[in-house]
C-alpha cells in the first residue's frame, strides 16, 4: 500500500448565495502519494479553486472526508485548521503574497513564528532562502526583488516548516516565460531531490506538463486523470 499524503473521499462543497445553493464540488475522490508531483487542471469556474482551498485547509468541505498526512481534517475548528496549515501545508500563490514591509528573511520566518518556535527561527529561515538560491538577498524587501525572486522567496516560505505538501496555485501566472521556467525548475528539483509532495493548480497545459499525473476538473467533478509520459521520462 503506497504512503498516501492526500486522501479525498466524495468531497462536496455547496455555497449559499442567499436562498440559492451553488454547488462548486459535486463529489470528488482522489489520492496523492508521498513524493508525487500532481497537477489539478481545469478552466475557470470548474471548481479547482474550491478544491485547492479545501486541500489547503483554508475551507471545509460541505460533506465527504479529507485526510491530510493521516489526519482527518474535514471537521476541525478554525484554530485546529490554522495549526494544520502551519505544520502540513506550504502555499505558493500566483501573486506571491509576500508582506511588503518585511524583508525576505522576515517573510520566510513568519510561519515559524506562528508555529510558536522561539529559537533557531532565523537560521532556519536563512537556510530555506539559501536552498532556493537567495542567500544573498536576505535583507531585501519584496519591491527590491524581481518577480521570479519574489516567487522563490514565497517557495522558501512554503518550505521552511517542512510541510507534508506544497500547494502551488498558478505559480507562474504573474511571471515572464523565463522566470516561470526557473520557478518550475525549482519546484521540480524540490520534488525530485528532496521528495517534496507538490500539488500544482493551473489552467495552463504547459505547466501541467511538469506533473506526473494531471487531475482534470470540470463542473465540480473529476473529468479524467491522465498520466504524463514526458514527466515520467524527466523523473527517470
Amino acid at each position, binding site marked *: 500500500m503506497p504512503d498516501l499524503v492526500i486522501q479525498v473521499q466524495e468531497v462536496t462543497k455547496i455555497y449559499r448565495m442567499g436562498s440559492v445553493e451553488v454547488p462548486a464540488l459535486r463529489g470528488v475522490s482522489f489520492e496523492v502519494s508521498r513524493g508525487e508531483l500532481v497537477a489539478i487542471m481545469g478552466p475557470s469556474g470548474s471548481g479547482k479553486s474550491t478544491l485547492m482551498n479545501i486541500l489547503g485547509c*483554508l475551507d471545509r468541505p460541505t460533506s465527504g472526508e479529507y485526510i491530510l498526512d493521516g489526519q482527518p481534517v474535514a471537521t476541525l475548528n478554525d*484554530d485546529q485548521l*490554522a*495549526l494544520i496549515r*502551519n505544520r502540513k501545508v506550504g502555499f505558493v*500563490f500566483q501573486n506571491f503574497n509576500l*508582506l511588503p514591509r518585511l524583508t525576505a528573511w522576515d517573510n520566510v520566518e513568519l510561519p515559524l513564528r*506562528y508555529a510558536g518556535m522561539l529559537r533557531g527561527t532565523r537560521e532556519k529561515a536563512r537556510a530555506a532562502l539559501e536552498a532556493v538560491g537567495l542567500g544573498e538577498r536576505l535583507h531585501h524587501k519584496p519591491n527590491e526583488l524581481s518577480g521570479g525572486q519574489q516567487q522563490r522567496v514565497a517557495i522558501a516560505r512554503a518550505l521552511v516548516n517542512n510541510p507534508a505538501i506544497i500547494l502551488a496555485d498558478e505559480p507562474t501566472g504573474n511571471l515572464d516565460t523565463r522566470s516561470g521556467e526557473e520557478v518550475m525548475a525549482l519546484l521540480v528539483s524540490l520534488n525530485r531531490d528532496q521528495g517534496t509532495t507538490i500539488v500544482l493548480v493551473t489552467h495552463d497545459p504547459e505547466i501541467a506538463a511538469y506533473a506526473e499525473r494531471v487531475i482534470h476538473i470540470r463542473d465540480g467533478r473529476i473529468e479524467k486523470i491522465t498520466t504524463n509520459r514526458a514527466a515520467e521520462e524527466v523523473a527517470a
Partner: protein
Amino acid sequence: MIVTFWLALRDAVQSLLANKMRSLLTVLGIVIGVGAVIAMLAIGRGAQNAITSSIEGIGTNLLFVMPGNIKPGSNPAAVSRHLTLGDVRALADPLAAPAVADVAPLVMRNEVVTAAGESHATSVVGVTPDYARVRNYHVTEGRFIDETDQAGRASVALLGPDAAKALFGRTEGLVGLMVRVRGQPFRIIGVLEPKGGGAMAGNQDDRVLIPLSTALARLTSHHNRVDVIMVSAISADQVNEARQEVTEILRRRHRLRPDQEDDFTIFTQDEFLGTFQTITSVLTIFLGGIAGISLLVGGIGIMNIMLVSVTERTREIGLRKALGARKRDILIQFLTEATLLSLIGGALGIGLGWGISALVGKIAAAAHADIVPEVGLDAVLMATLFSAAVGIFFGLYPANRAARLEPVEALRYE
C-alpha cells in the same frame, strides 16, 4: 510569551512607520486629550496648593467669629445680632476662656486710598496690636500698630507691599509719608512683608492697616460693632475647646435660650481649608472630565483608523492565516498596534500637558497670581493607563473583526 510580545510589537512598529503621517494624525486626538487632562489636573492642583498655602498663611490655630448665623440650613431670623467690643472683651478674659490665646477684632472697608496724586481702591482694615501675632504679620520697615496708636485713635497706617507699589511704585522709604483715606491724612508707620497667597483667596498683600479705634471712629457709623473677631487657640489641639468656650460666652452675652440657634458663626481654619478644597476638587474633576471627553474622541479616531487599516490589510490577514496564524495571533497583532498608537499619543500628550502647565504657570507668575501648576506622578500614571485602556477598548472591535475574517475570502479580497 515575552518573545511573542516583542514580535507583535515589532510588527506594530513597522506597520505604524509604514504610514507615518496617518499614525501621527490618528494619535493627535489622544495627544490633545491626554494633554488637556494632564494640564487641567496640574492647574487644579496648583490652584488648590495656592489656596491652601494662603489660608495657612493667615495664621495658626485660628477661629473666625462672624455675626449672624450663615451656616447652611440655618434660620435666617437669627441673623440680626452683631458682634461688639463688649463681646471682644469677654472673649479675651482668660478665666472665662482658658483655651483662647489672642483675640483680634477687625473691621474692613473697601476704600479709595490716595497718595501723591495716585489713587488705589483697596481694603482698609482696622486692627488691634494683637493682630500682628494672630496673623503672623511682620514689617519690612517701620513698626506695627501699638497700644498707644490704639488708645489715641492715631491717624497712622501700615501698607501691604502691593498697596505700597500701587501708590508709590516702591516698598521702601515710605515711613513718614502720608496717604489719604476718605480725604483724611494718615501717616505711614510701616510696610508689611509680602504674604503671598492666591488671587482666589483675596490678595493679602493689597491692603492698608489702621488702628481699630481709628477705623471705628472714622470709617463706621456704629462705633461699637466689629466685622470679624479672630480668635487663636493656645495650641492646635485646643481649637475645639476654644470654639466651645467662645460659643458659650457669646450665647450667654447674647441671652440666647437653649432652644435658640446661635446668632453668630464660627469657622475654624480647617473648615475654610476643607470648603475651598472641596470647591477646587469639584472644579478640577469638572475640567478633567471635559478634557476626558476629548480623550474619548481620540479613541474613536483610533477605532476609525484601525477599521480602515483592517480593510486595507484584508489580504495580509488572509495570508497570515494561510501561514498558520490563529484568531488569537491576529487579534493580538491589531490590539498591539492600537494600544501602541494610543500609548505614543499618551506619551506625547503628557509632554504637551506638561508644556501647557508650565506656560500657565509662567502667565500666572506674570500676573502675580501664585498658581504653580504641578504635574503629579499620579496624573501621569493615570494618563498612561487611561490611554492604554482607550487603545485596547477602541482597538478591540477592529481587531476582532480582523481576527474573524475567513481566510479564503480575505485572500481573494482585492
